[in-house]
């Protein structure tokens, strides 16, 4: 149970601070003082992260992240496996308690203002289950009503989302019998149901067939076109390059580059090349496998 508990001091801090409106100083003390001091003139950024840390035992999964994501963008969080993308998104969305650091969503602190934050974000985590013994429609209605939406409104929105996401035919099937693509789509529908301002999607295209991927893409593009912010993680560079206008590159628990797509790509021909040089990956793989293909078996 260690590690999941957070430090005793931090829980005290939470206890005293709950219910107050967004505080600007970091929740966990330490680095990142003065969060929110800058940027008071314009609209607050969609996501603002300062000095975010998370250790699992000896290993730091997230080692001091500072990030500011502008509103209304299609944001890609890219990085190799194990870079800390999922850990970061879990902490940003309030599902995982950070060891240190502060997170604000549209100017509200995730840990001191859960009411303000939870109603403004939609989440599609990776590696966590849904309530899979509900049918697709029941899951949407359940989630919507947990969020306090009126029954008739939940019904209307659920019907439309199921229709748009091409799930109407499977709406009375248990989610446990859904394919990966259908799961991602029903998860996306649940995340969109309350019309959030910022949408966090962890690997929304992982294991999804091209048809479902296109449907998801269409819905997300429509969502950002009307002012919503999408933050999604992926390690498929071509996808990120074609979808996003803003990217953050993670490696080894840190943000190694962030900004508009063109800026991060720089002189490199593709985002893939820029990414590989940023994370310091070796492009020459497999030169010792001289026995592979042709010749002796």
């Amino acid at each position, binding site marked *: 149970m260690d590690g999941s508990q957070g430090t005793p001091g931090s829980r005290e801090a939470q206890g005293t601070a709950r219910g107050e409106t967004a505080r600007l100083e970091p929740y966990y003390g330490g680095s990142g003082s003065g969060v929110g001091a800058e940027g008071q003139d314009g609209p607050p950024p969609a996501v603002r992260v300062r000095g975010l840390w998370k250790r699992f035992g000896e290993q730091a999964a997230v080692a001091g992240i500072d990030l500011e994501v502008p509103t209304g963008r299609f944001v890609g969080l890219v990085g190799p496996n194990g870079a800390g993308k999922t850990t970061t998104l879990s902490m940003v969305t309030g*599902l995982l308690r950070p060891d240190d650091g502060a997170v604000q969503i549209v100017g509200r602190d995730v840990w001191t203002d859960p*009411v303000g*934050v939870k109603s403004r974000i939609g989440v599609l985590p990776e590696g966590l289950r849904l309530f899979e013994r509900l049918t697709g429609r029941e899951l949407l209605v*359940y989630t919507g009503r*947990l969020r306090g939406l009126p029954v008739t409104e939940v019904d209307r929105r659920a019907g439309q989302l199921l229709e748009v996401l091409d799930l109407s035919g499977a709406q009375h099937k248990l989610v446990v*019998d859904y394919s990966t693509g259908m799961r991602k789509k029903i998860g996306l529908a*649940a995340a969109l149901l309350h019309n959030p301002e910022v949408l966090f999607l962890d690997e929304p295209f992982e294991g999804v067939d091209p048809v479902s991927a296109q449907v998801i893409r269409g819905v997300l593009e429509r969502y950002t076109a009307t002012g919503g912010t999408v933050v999604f993680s992926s390690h498929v560079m071509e996808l990120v390059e074609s979808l996003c206008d803003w990217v953050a590159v993670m490696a080894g628990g840190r943000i190694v580059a962030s900004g508009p797509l063109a800026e991060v790509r720089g002189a490199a021909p593709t985002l893939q090349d820029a990414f590989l040089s940023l994370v310091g990956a070796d492009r020459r793989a497999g030169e010792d496998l001289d026995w592979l293909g042709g010749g002796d078996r």
Partner: protein
Amino acid sequence: MTAAGSLTGAGEPAGRAPSVVPVFIRLKLSVLRNGLRQSRGRTVGWAIGVAFSMLYALGLGAGMIALRGNDYAPAAAVTLSLVLGLGWAVMPLFFFGGDDTLDPTRLTMLPLRPRPLITALLASSLIGVGPLFTVLVSTGAVVAVAHSTSAAVVAVVAVALLLLTCVALSRAVAAANTRLLTSRRGRDLALLSGLVVAVGAQLVNLGVNALSSHHGLHRMTSLTAVLRWIPPAPAVDAVRSASHGAYGLMAAQLACDVVFLAVVLVWWHRSLFRLMVSPDASTIQSGPEGGEGRVPRSRRAGGSGDSAAAAGRGERPAGPAGLLPRRLVAGRTAPVMERQFRYLWRDPRSRATLATGLAIGLLLPLVAVVQHGTIYQCLWAGGLLGMQMYNQFGMDSSAFWIVSATLATRKDAALELRGRALTLALIAVPYITVVTVGAALLLGRTEALPETLGLSLAFLGSLIGTGAYASVRFPYAVPQDNPFGNAAPGQGGLVALNVFGGTLTGAAMSLPVLALTVTLHLTGHHALLWTVLPFGAVYGLAVAALALRLTAPKLLDRLPEILAVVART
């Protein structure tokens, strides 16, 4: 296997290929060893389990030997061998997930023909605790009926034949049901059938107790005339025939078993062949017609009807939550209750837990009625159902993130807990009432009804209250892949804390009601004992309500911590 190797092998007859038997035996040993390597606790648990089953086998074998010469020895030997055979036949249905080597689909990609595969699988299946157990027990059984040298020789053959038949039967059943057992529905079904067997065994136990007179044994002996012709029993009974010098009968019985073994092997061969040449079940499942009909038509209609009706009536919650006053199920309480009820019906784990509580909660008062015991056995019903409030969020597994992501205020937290408590209460209160009233009527102790019911309700309320607290403070992960484990490895201490700590605290919290009952009894105010019922009911309600209120802020504070624990599966 290199291309060159297979080329040289092609010149020889097909049967000359190197045997795969040693490979499979090594594989089985590696699987056993690696299973033990996972954790120290597991190794210790395994060793204790093996020690106990060996002791049990030795005891059973020794018991059979002690029966040697007794009139009932042949009947006992035949029954025992049948029980062994039945055990082996049903075992794969319950423990399929436990043994990877049982799943032939894992071997489909290997270049193996069914026949050598069967030999190899059969040989590797003979290694393990189960076969050793079978050998020990069946040796006892044949010793009990072997009374001559020729019988001793037949006995050796009989034990070998019995073991082979059991193992082959078990493998054949597993192979024939692989499709079912690896599918989601199959696993759901296996979980529930395990429960049916467990409860059924208790009922059989009750029946055996009731029948365990000389008359009952006599009836058993006459039944043996039929039973001894059901394989694998003939092999064991052949030993008795040999002892009597009835060699014709002996030969017929041994032949009966050999034929049965052959039939089983053919069945196994066919199932394996079918499995190895047809596509994997996972591919079939994702096909277009895969999920059609999974949800019964009635529910399909009911689902849309529910929502349409709810829309028509305004915000009136559907389902059992609709039975309660609207203020009680306001906010997220109603959706939480609806989901809980759906899970109790559809989630095999929730369903099995509830069904166990209901069944044992009924069984123990029933035992009291049969054996003219005490009416206080009815307290078990309240206790077992109240315990279901424990580890609420562990049952959610990592889907708890949905609860966490939508729970932002103390009020949300209170309503979430209330929904779960009300779901349980809506089942438990009527059930306890029916069981207690029934037991009181059958035992002719209607005068003790109010106090028993009052105590039950107080106990239930206390358990719901402490269960809510424990769910928030001491959650533990429930493994999702192993339907028989109730906690993921390394959490034994937490489970014990929940069960024992919870029961003790719950019992301690219902002390005031118990004290009232005892006082009224001791002071001779029997006419006032009815007051225990209203007092217990109000007390239970108050304790539960207070505990939920005090626990709600803790739930809100501990959301990420609970998620971190329950998602660890």
